[in-house]
């Protein structure tokens, strides 16, 4: 940044807005470019959307509890299930994963921030505004009701309000693309010295794979959405048979995006599980390279299976057979992961802490969803299953049983790192079991319902078809899930006041994020760590004896007894980690410790929000900025303009341009 700090005065004069200086309060959050704060923003926002999407699910379940339900109208129901699907996928699982990417990725690779901190802020604000834009449709004549995959030509009937869907998803797509570019570059370029690719934690690898999936999958959806929007708004004919268009093209576009998307939704959770199992089994991940490579394989194979969503379209037996084959074999790399996880647990010393419970819940439930997925790949069977509740069961088992359980595992695992305090284990365990039972009660019966003939997306069913009983069970289950979520909320709130102080390494974990304080300082690490091995932090604490047994490294800051039987930070309820392992010498195993860095030089205010103050170690962190949020604000304005008035279009474009200009001319740190 030497060049930047000697910026010509002209620049300072011409700047439109003064550099934000707030260090606390709302403006510090609006202007923050700290990856950890942005991660928290992502996390909180997407959790709020989870509650909203869950509330919508509750309405669905209330309506379907009994035959000929009258809780909501047909129109409302169709809007609700569409928004439920969109919310859960685009506003919950994707951004909640992004929350962890943001917070953990730089810490895990020993970086001080992501590659483009302001771009990072931009993607958060675009996400938030995109979500609000989508939800504003409720006030503007009705929410989209064409289903989350918006099949044309239905989606082109004005009554479905799919213009808001098209623009909303384009906005959200911009957010995700930008974020994906940022994470991909961060992984490629920001790793600490010695952190070679195959020393990266699996979670980092999965982030990396997901970023590429996003980079390549989203533009396909974007073009589909643009064409949909043009059809609806400007009278083009892309999916209109009257003008020569072909509605099936939409399906190809959507699922060419959509199938990679489902792996975008689950790979982060798989990464989280791969981090958690070794910690609580106190063994390294079994077959690390294989787990990584199978993740990459899933990423590649995910591009070749999209038409399994279209088996009943009538593409012909040759196409259907080809996609049946590719779909079946995508189960292989997924199975490899499952077996490697089980082998990780095998021979371990398994401690059933809440994060592990959720990780195990992930494995157990995901297997069920995966196996039902394989039965869809049996094409003739899918002729019966497609568009029934059997599909709804499949994807909730992989999305809720998979992604959401995995993300909850991540929340419980990293909560102490992020907040500095533990969540209650007791409440956590009740939360887990209640959710597991509720989940299976809700979605298990849907298998039966689907096979017994209940189509999805129906706002009511008739008595006499045999659907009554299991629907009621499912509704009861959904309320158990709801209760468990409320319990989690209580646990979270409670933790801020009564949670035990966590210390840097409460689980006696393996990866670098645990080497710094909880929560970490703005600059993450006092010294950028030098990495010598996979699970480097673990090896600073423990060495492996000749027989593969653990031996604590004396000066390494290990929790003493390698069995962790007593006094271990792993026993979260009892003891708070005695491990002041921020003091672990990050310069690396066994070498002589470096003298402590000189304090005080270049000491700015040092306050948190004024991030470039760093810890006063001469570390320049990027300064907060208004411009990402301003630029992001331009997008929804522009989109409202496309719908309502060209003045707003100009307004939005100008806001965007002003934001980008200010951004481009403002030095990233000063």
């Amino acid at each position, binding site marked *: *940044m*030497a*060049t930047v700090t000697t910026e*010509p005065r*002209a*620049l300072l004069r*011409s700047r439109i807005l003064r550099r934000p200086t707030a260090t606390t309060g709302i403006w510090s959050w609006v202007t923050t470019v700290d990856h950890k704060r942005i991660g928290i923003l992502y996390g909180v926002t997407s959790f709020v959307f989870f509650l909203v999407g869950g509330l919508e699910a509750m309405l669905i379940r209330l309506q379907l509890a009994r035959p000929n339900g009258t809780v909501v109208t047909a129109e409302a129901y169709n809007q609700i299930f569409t928004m439920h699907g969109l919310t859960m996928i685009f506003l919950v699982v994707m951004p909640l994963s992004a929350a962890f990417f943001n917070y953990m990725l730089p810490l895990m690779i020993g*970086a*001080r*921030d992501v*590659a*483009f*901190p302001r*771009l990072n802020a931009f993607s958060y604000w675009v996400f938030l505004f995109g979500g609000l834009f989508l939800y504003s449709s409720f006030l503007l004549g009705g929410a989209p009701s064409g289903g989350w995959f918006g099949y044309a030509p239905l989606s082109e009937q004005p009554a479905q309000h799919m213009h808001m869907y098209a623009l909303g998803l384009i906005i959200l797509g911009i957010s995700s*693309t930008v974020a*994906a*570019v*940022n994470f*991909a*570059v961060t992984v*490629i*370029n*920001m*790793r600490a010295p010695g*952190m070679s690719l195959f020393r990266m934690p699996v979670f980092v690898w999965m982030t990396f794979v997901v970023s590429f999936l996003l*980079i*390549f999958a*989203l*533009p*396909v959806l*974007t*073009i*589909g959405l*643009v*064409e949909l929007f*043009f059809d609806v708004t*400007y*009278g*083009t*004919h*892309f999916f209109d048979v009257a*003008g*020569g*268009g072909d509605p099936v*093209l939409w399906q190809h*576009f959507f699922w060419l995006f959509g199938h990679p998307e489902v792996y975008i939704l689950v790979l982060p959770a798989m990464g989280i599980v791969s981090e958690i199992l070794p910690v609580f089994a106190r063994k390294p991940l079994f077959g690390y390279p294989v787990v990584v490579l199978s993740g990459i394989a899933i990423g590649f194979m995910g591009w070749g299976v999209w038409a399994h969503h279209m088996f009943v379209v009538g593409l012909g037996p040759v196409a259907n057979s080809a996609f049946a084959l590719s779909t079946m074999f995508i189960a292989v790399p997924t199975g490899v992961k499952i077996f490697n996880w089980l082998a990780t647990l095998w021979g371990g010393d398994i401690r059933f802490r809440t994060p592990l419970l959720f990780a195990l819940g992930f494995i157990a439930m995901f297997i069920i969803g995966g196996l039902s997925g394989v039965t869809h790949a049996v094409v003739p069977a899918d002729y019966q299953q497609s568009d029934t509740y059997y599909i709804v069961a499949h994807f909730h088992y992989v999305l809720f049983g998979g992604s959401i359980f995995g993300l909850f595992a991540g929340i419980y695992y990293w909560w102490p790192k992020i907040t500095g305090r533990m969540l209650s284990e007791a409440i956590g365990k009740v939360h887990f079991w209640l959710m597991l039972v509720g989940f299976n009660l809700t979605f298990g019966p849907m298998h039966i319902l689907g096979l017994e003939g209940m189509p999805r997306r129906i706002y009511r069913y008739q008595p006499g078809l045999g659907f009554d009983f299991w629907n009621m069970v499912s509704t009861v289950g959904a309320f158990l899930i709801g209760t468990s979520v409320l319990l989690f909320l209580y646990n979270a709130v409670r933790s801020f006041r009564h949670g035990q102080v966590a210390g840097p390494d409460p689980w006696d974990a393996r990866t670098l994020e645990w080497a710094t304080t909880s929560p970490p300082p703005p*600059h993450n690490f006092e010294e*950028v760590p030098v990495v010598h091995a996979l699970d480097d932090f673990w090896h600073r604490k423990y060495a492996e004896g000749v027989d593969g047994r653990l031996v604590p490294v004396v000066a390494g800051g290990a929790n003493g007894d390698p069995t962790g039987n007593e006094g271990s930070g792993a026993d979260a309820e009892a003891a708070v980690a005695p491990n002041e392992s921020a003091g672990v010498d990050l310069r690396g195993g066994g070498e002589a410790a470096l003298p402590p860095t000189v304090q005080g030089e270049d000491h700015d205010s040092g306050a948190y929000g004024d991030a470039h103050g760093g810890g006063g170690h001469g*570390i*320049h*962190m*990027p300064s907060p900025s208004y411009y990402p949020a301003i630029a992001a604000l331009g997008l929804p304005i522009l989109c409202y303009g496309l719908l309502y008035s060209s003045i707003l279009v100009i307004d939005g474009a100008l806001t965007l*341009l002003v934001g*980008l*200009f200010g*951004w*481009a*001319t403002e030095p*990233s*740190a000063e």
Partner: protein
Amino acid sequence: MAADIRAVEHGAPTSTGLSNSKLGMWAFLGSECLLFGALISTFLLYRGKDVTGLTPQKVYDIPYTSVSSFVLLMSSLTMVLALAAIQRGDHGKLRVWLMATALLGMTFIAGQVYEFTVFVHEGMTIKTNVIASSFFTLTGFHGAHVTGGIIMLLSLFGMSLDGRLPVEKAEAVELVGLYWHFVDIVWIVIFTVVYLIPGR
């Protein structure tokens, strides 16, 4: 825009030695490839359709478009010269070539606007049929990308006039150049697919 060049450490080398911005631009262009790929696929899929009304193939003026394509190709050359100029520290030449590139781009856009006007005049609009829809959307998207590029070029020009584009910031020119060449290459593909390969 996205030029938070290694903001977090004092000029510390990146893991690969490549600059973040350049990698980011490459990743972004990778995404753009699929964006145009989807648009071009749409056009290819529909080009042979039996539709009513005029289709682009019936109203093209290929020599005219060849000239404007040549103009755009030339702008890649001037872009290269602009980059070379800033790397030499020759700010005068930099401004000349930046402006030349922008002007060539504007010529191309003007040509496209004229072409569209002629087509509409002859009775082919974006609503005529699906081939026309695909044509206008594809070339329109490309035009929008060129326009974005022109804005970036003019911004660089302005910054340079203002003395805010020192040699150390040559990378900004390089990034815009990458983008500009990409848009150019895409046009070659579009020109071939849309204009040169005979359709219905």
